[in-house]
């Protein structure tokens, strides 16, 4: 299955669309080059052969300062075909100008992505380009930092209240 989808994507977008892959394990995955992710998702959703009509989950992952990468993981599911697929996008942790690493939003493909991407933004600090409403979803709006980053340090005070024990 993974192989067929891979060749389908390469036929459509060229060989540079796949950055890496892992065909084994419980969740075989394809890592898609970041610029292609929205188009790839549209294709996998619209193509009747794949028809991934459901985004089961979208998560952000911090691989830590050593590997120096952040990931977004997309768990797709096709209800009529009874198939599942895991996609990844891997981006560097730091950008040159110090802004948040950016990944195109897939909200235009699956509405479900809206809150999941807000969570990844809130917890990991990933900027989703063209997201309709990219606000923090769990922490207060004026919270500092991204708590699930491996090198996260809590702020000392929040509105004058000491944060540490």
């Amino acid at each position, binding site marked *: 299955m993974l192989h067929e989808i891979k060749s389908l994507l390469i036929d459509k977008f060229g060989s540079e669309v796949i950055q890496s892959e892992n065909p084994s394990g419980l969740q075989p995955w394809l890592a898609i080059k970041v610029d292609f992710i929205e188009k790839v998702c549209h294709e996998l959703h619209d193509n009747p052969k794949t028809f991934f009509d459901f985004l089961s989950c979208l998560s952000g992952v911090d691989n830590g300062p050593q590997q120096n990468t952040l990931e977004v993981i997309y768990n797709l599911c096709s209800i009529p075909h009874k198939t599942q697929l895991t996609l990844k996008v891997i981006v560097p942790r730091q950008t040159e100008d110090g802004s948040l690493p950016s990944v195109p939003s897939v909200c235009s493909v699956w509405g479900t992505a809206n809150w999941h991407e807000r969570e990844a933004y809130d917890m990991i600090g990933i900027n989703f380009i063209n997201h309709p409403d990219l606000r923090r979803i769990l922490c207060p709006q004026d919270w500092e930092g991204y708590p699930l980053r491996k090198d996260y340090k809590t702020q000392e005070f929040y509105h004058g209240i*000491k944060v540490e024990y």
Partner: protein
Amino acid sequence: MGLLDYKFDQGRVIITRVDDVLNWARLSSIWPIGFGLACCAIEMMATMASGHDLDRFGVFPRPSPRQSDLMLVAGTVTFKMAERVKRLYEQMPEPRYVLSMGSCSNCGGPYWEYGYHVLKGVDRVIPVDVYVPGCPPRPEALIGGILKLQEKIRNESLLNPAALV
């Protein structure tokens, strides 16, 4: 009522202190503002339900801070919630009391070290009268806390209040 009828039915008088009557009335109808913040709230609800029946102590939850004497902080206070808790407390008429129920609201509980989002004790935003330990405290423990509060009220003097320190 036999004994009381026998004592008072012929227009007899009793002599007591105004403070004692006021305190007796107040401690027999402690109305808490009805809200729960996490798992402890389930135990609070169980305490108020028929099995443990807090109503027999005159404790009866109110839907508005304006009608409440007691704030029962039952659960995990996040920083996002802390400011709401403080505002609710400020909306309560005096004399008002706070009972902190469970480790979370006493001191941060299981989140004391890594819970970046949890207030490490509700006493950092509002003054607490009674702390009930436990995770969660059993209904008996909560009832014990209410009895402690009754004891506190019984020894107060509204007409000649001790200065707030």
